[in-house]
């Protein structure tokens, strides 16, 4: 949310199916959509908005690998270099016994890392207040928003009335 004071014109739709049709029409009319807001994830919307697949899983893999290495190399160093102890006549470097902790730390690092990454790239976090357009978006309205610097107000309004928006509003966020 680096940008401030964006003039926005937005339309609210009562149903995700109507909203999806509207997004298709906006694409064919070459109207640049700023964002779409919805009370739940609408499937099939991402390709219409040109959103690429999330790369969170890559972050998850990297953090997971970090966990694997931390656990395995850590235990190896402790039990072979730092303080070798014989337990039950087994070798110092008893790999099978390291597997459970290695697995747990892989999962722990991957999930903490991914969750932190998610909140950071979305600009979300404890106490963060992001500007939002309408209280009913988290209830039952589906919202298409245009940035007025990219789309003319009048063009947006005629687009909303043509696509069956139940309400059109202007707001600066």
């Amino acid at each position, binding site marked *: 949310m680096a940008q401030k004071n964006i003039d926005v014109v937005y339309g609210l739709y009562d149903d995700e199916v109507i909203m999806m049709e509207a997004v298709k029409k906006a694409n064919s009319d070459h109207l640049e959509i700023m964002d779409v807001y919805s009370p*739940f994830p609408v499937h099939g919307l991402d390709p219409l908005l040109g959103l690429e697949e999330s790369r969170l899983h890559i972050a998850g893999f990297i953090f997971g690998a970090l966990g694997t290495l931390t656990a395995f190399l850590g235990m190896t160093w402790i039990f072979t270099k730092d303080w070798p102890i014989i337990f039950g006549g087994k070798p110092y470097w008893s790999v099978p016994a390291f597997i*459970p902790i290695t697995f*747990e730390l892989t999962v722990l690092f991957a999930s903490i890392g991914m969750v932190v990454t998610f909140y950071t*790239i979305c600009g*979300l976090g*404890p106490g963060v207040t*992001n500007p939002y357009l309408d209280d009913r978006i988290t*209830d*039952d309205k589906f919202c298409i928003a245009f940035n007025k610097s990219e789309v003319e107000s009048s063009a947006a309004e005629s687009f909303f009335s043509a696509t069956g928006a139940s309400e059109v509003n202007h707001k600066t966020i």
Partner: protein
Amino acid sequence: MSSVVSPIREPLVTGGKTYHQITEDLISPTERTPSKPWVIGFLLSVMTFSFGAFCIIWTIWHGIGTWDLNRTIGWGWDITNFVWWIGIGHAGTLISAILLLFRQKWRTGVNRAAEAMTIFAVMCAGLFPVIHMGRVWLAIFIFPYPNTRGPLWPNFNSPLLWDVFAISTYFTVSLLFWYTGLVPDFATVRDRAKGFRKKIYNFLSFGWTGSAKHWQRWESLSLILAGIATPLVLSVHTIVSFDFATSVIPGWHTTIFPPYFVAGAIFSGFAMVLTLMLVVRKVLKLEDYITLEHIESMNKVILATGSIVGVAYLTELFISWYSGYVYEQFAFFNRALGPYWWSYFGMMFCNVVSPQFFWNKSLRRNVLFTFFMSIFINIGMWFERFVIIATTLARDYLPSSWSYYSPTWVEIGIFVGTLGLFFVLFLIFTRVAPTVAVAEIKSILKTSGDQYVGKNLGHAHSHDETVSTEEAH
């Protein structure tokens, strides 16, 4: 848009709900003043929890000698309760992670509460090993941190230490998964709230806006977390079973333990989900969201896992006989017919016999019967852990050290106290957060609402007609 849904599938949201009604039904319990049953339940839970806290302080003050453990029986109610609580937790992760991977839509009705249950159950479980250590102020020694004692490290080859890692990871991952799912629903609460309440939920909802990109990442995150929580949940009870299976005690030293513990965990967890949800459904009037279809699905899981547990019990008996190993044979003979025969038969009846009633469809859909069954199963699974732990230890290799164990009031008090803690936390949860996942219910409405699927469909209009009429006006 609508995915293909079989016409014989039963609806999961009944009452012809609209999106707004769903918000209204699910959020409003957090906005009303508490009802009388809630207040009474809460006070009772606080009282039992306070007694438990008193017993814990008593234990720490006077030492573990206040328990009836002895040289022969070193693990009693404490570890029994620990394994029982951990097992209960497993259903939450199973519902939210494994059923998400299997695309089971009925999970949306119960996943939020089940995950909350997981977190609270793991908190209760974690308490027991810590107070069992005796000197609780040294509990941090179990973590490998650089220290001035050498540094002296914990033994990474010990299953008890694996347990520390497994359970702390399990708690953390469950908490993250649960909270990330809650964020959009907290935003819904925020947008309906005013004044100070709005400030609180603004903080809790992390500034959620419902942007398309955020939803996309949120779904991706949920899916990957589910993917890694699935092996995690299986690993946790596997590692708990290693506490026993890697020892050389007859009756514990068996390779069947990991799968049998995991099945038992899911079995008991679903029973606890049913115990809680049947009450929540009634009190908060959520019959349209937690339908008989949901209850039947959970009862099927109970039937399947209960039967697995039954097969495991019988396998254990057969193998101990077939092994020709006298100590193993004695361990099982002693379990069934020794001084603790009553707990063995309690376990057999509650866990193996009683779930078989669920082969009957009308019993699977009978709410009252299900409720009593869920209590039975919880008791049975507690007996299972008691049988494994106390009866096995009571008769060890040396007949001269044979002993009998029964709990003191302190041990009973701590167990009752954790029940109190569990219900205190769960009751607070039903007040501050929507008990059913609001956004997820909305996302399945078009494929599982009773105006779109099921028997009532005949006179309702189809999907495309709804769209065209709405477009016209």
